[in-house]
């Protein structure tokens, strides 16, 4: 039997995403040809632009937020909970955390830490509402989180007014929370030579979240209960898991990580939550969690790929090609990767059943009872 890290197994694992990417390049090529552009020229342009130092930094930064968002979604997915509400959770969390950060004044690392903790708390609470509704009232978390997204948008619009949590920004009609003072900033660092643009300090937090997620899932009893519930609720109940409690806990965790999604932008760039704070990252997270199969490493590659496509496509407008071609590629990758994973899964299952069959054909170690009469006939 091949081991856990045999080349064959790695190849099988990689087969699905590689197939999906090739397929999406194919579809994108067809679309490009249909509108009269040369796929090769377009892909070349994206590649050239994508590996420029500045684009690379932007890609890492975008991937950081994508990663956090996807991990938040993946925690739910592992338990068959579909947290569509990451979007509302991180926006509400970022807004309230920004307001707290602007209002308080603390020494340097502590200030940022408080802002981050507030964000996690708000995200957890907002997701927790859906968790409690699901566990104790049977409300589908899909519906409740979608509605909570809409409510979050309303709450933010209400709070983000002068006199409430917002202050006017000078020289523009943008309004936002009071800027967080210097002590609350999380500095970036120059990582890629040849550009002034800095990588978010939060990149380390994202790595930390990924490691913690992996450790929780694979090394703790809690993670085992979580996965067991996701694989078979009835078996989990029989094994002594309190499914209600797991649902609430998983939603709280998912929401807490969702609360982090806005932090790189807030504490590493804008220092205030204003009307133009990025929205929609929660939905990107769903796609990337699917792409990475809820696996912490898979999600990291997924987030980088997604961010690369988003950022490198910015050049296309200059080339006279609609940059939405990147969206088409992202979409086809997700769709085809789901199909490809299923194909690989079936292939593997068949292979394993064959191995079991081989085992059956071998003579048994020792018959435990009865006198062996040998093979009659």
């Amino acid at each position, binding site marked *: 039997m091949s081991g856990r890290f045999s080349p064959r197994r790695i190849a099988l694992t990689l087969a699905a995403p590689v197939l999906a990417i090739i397929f999406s390049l194919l579809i994108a090529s067809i679309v490009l040809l249909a509108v009269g552009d040369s796929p090769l020229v377009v892909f070349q342009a994206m590649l050239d632009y994508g590996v420029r130092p500045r684009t690379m930094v932007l890609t890492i930064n975008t991937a950081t937020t994508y990663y956090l968002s996807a991990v938040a979604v993946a925690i739910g997915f592992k338990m068959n909970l579909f947290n569509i509400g990451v979007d509302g959770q991180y926006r509400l969390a970022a807004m309230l955390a920004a307001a707290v950060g602007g209002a308080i004044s603390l020494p340097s690392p502590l200030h940022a830490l408080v802002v981050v903790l507030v964000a996690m708390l708000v995200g957890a609470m907002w997701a927790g509402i859906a968790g409690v509704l699901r566990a104790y009232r049977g409300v589908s978390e899909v519906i409740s989180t979608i509605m909570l997204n809409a409510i979050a948008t309303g709450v933010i619009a209400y709070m983000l007014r002068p006199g409430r949590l917002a202050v006017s920004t000078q020289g523009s009609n943008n309004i936002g929370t009071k800027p967080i003072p210097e002590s609350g900033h999380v500095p970036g660092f120059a990582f890629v030579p040849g550009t002034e643009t800095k990588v978010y300090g939060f990149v380390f937090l994202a790595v930390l979240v990924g490691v913690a997620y992996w450790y929780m899932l694979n090394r703790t*009893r809690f993670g085992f209960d979580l996965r*067991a519930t996701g694989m078979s609720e009835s078996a989990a109940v*029989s094994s002594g898991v309190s499914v209600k409690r797991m649902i609430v806990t998983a939603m709280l965790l998912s929401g807490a990580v969702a609360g982090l999604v806005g932090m790189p932008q807030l504490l590493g760039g804008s220092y205030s939550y204003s009307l133009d704070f990025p929205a929609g990252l929660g939905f990107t997270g769903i796609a990337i969690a699917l792409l990475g199969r809820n696996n912490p490493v898979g999600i990291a590659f997924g987030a980088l790929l997604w961010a690369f496509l988003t950022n490198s496509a910015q050049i296309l407008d200059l080339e006279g090609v609609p940059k939405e071609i990147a969206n088409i590629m992202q979409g086809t990758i997700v769709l085809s990767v789901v199909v490809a994973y299923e194909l690989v899964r079936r292939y593997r299952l068949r292979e394993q059943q064959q*191995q079991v069959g*081989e*085992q*059956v054909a071998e003579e048994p170690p020792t018959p*435990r*009872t009865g006198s062996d009469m040998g*093979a009659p006939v």
Partner: protein
Amino acid sequence: MANRDINIAVQAGHVHAIVGENGAGKSTLMNILYGLIRPDEGTISVEGTTVDLASPSDAIAAGIGMVHQHFKLADNFTVLENIVLGDEPTKGAWVDFGRAKSRINEIADKYGLEVDPEELVENLGVGDRQRVEILKVLYRGARILILDEPTAVLVPQEVDELFDALRDLKSEGLTVIFISHKLDEVLSVADEITVIRRGTTVATVDPSEVTAHDLAELMVGSELPVPELRDSTVTDKPVLTLDGVTVTSPDGRTLLEGLSFTIHSGEILGIAGVEGNGQAELVDAVMGIRPISSGTVLLGDEDITAWATRKVREAGVYAIPEDRTRQGLLLEAPLWENRMLGHQTEVPNAKGPLIDRKGARADTERIVRDYDVRTPSIDIPASALSGGNQQKLIVGREMSGTPKMLVAAHPTRGVDVGAQAAIWDHMRTARANGLAVLLISADLDELIGMSDSLSVILRGRLVADFDPRSVTPQDLGSAMTGATTSAEGAA
């Protein structure tokens, strides 16, 4: 290799049965005949011509049709639509349902397979659905029918109807290959029987010359195990005491009513009953899965009535669940993770809040060895194992560690005869060491042979107690159906 050196000659116009234990390779053989798997060596001939079956359509072209154990019908289609699906007679661009219907009626008349072609499949019973499956195969011109465990889903009357139909098919010159492990049925319907063991054919016999017992021994390759307890090991130390346990469903129906019994250390209490009379609820009530509305459950002297499942399990009450795939396994998870299920807080699976991978894996290897779970590795998912091997893993898991009390629902269901003997052996040893067992089973021989005392459950109530040393299956059977309700003997 799941099959090797399979030699079978099936005569035209015969019902040829193939019997073997779980995992003996029957399914693989069928898949080869139906073109789903290609053999590495050897040939298949139909009516003297060697055929190469690379896909099911090759098999159909060669006149081989397969009736699957699990029906493959579209519920929201009519019988007619289901039968023609994939092989529609056309008139221009339209399906010619008229022609299809007359052909189906013709076939149905010829072989005595009466089904209304206009009926929706969702309105049909299991027996009718099976007839549709057979019609589907005949409609495609099959001359050789393979039936994979066709009686597994049927009630006795339906089995009789099926066998009548098979005799009709036979008299019309069709050939039937009948796969089963129900030996009595095989003996009543087959003209010839081939026994498969460990992937190879061990014998072809004439049903008039063998008994079910002979067949079973050919299947196992050794003498049949008998469920029996030797000396009594019952002590006076109560382990599990139920007193007036009543369970009601959320909508107010009474599922269990006033159940009282005591199981002592070293005692096996058997519960007989027709399935669905409260056995599942009894297990759930003891295990803390279902809330008890009145009455108490004591473990030793401790009141565990309101305990959560995990606490009950940690206190040493283990359970072999009734439905292994739904309640006993994580099908997608590897075997060693399934070893932890239900014991995820206990040694050797856990160290504080963390999982002890090393401990769990080593112990899984031990279970695989001791319980003869046939698997190439403990890293493959549980879904890849055959049902019998899955059951062996579960039994091994629930008899590991230090259980005080074992709730065993159908512990040997679906396992082969050899494994059955091994499981009984393990239960006897554990009983001698003081384990108390609540044994729920549909196998009356197992219940009578393995119990120190026996009770019958009917509509959620214990209606009779029997002494297993003197009771007959007939006595039990009539108590189970409520024909007699008077208690007899001592338990």
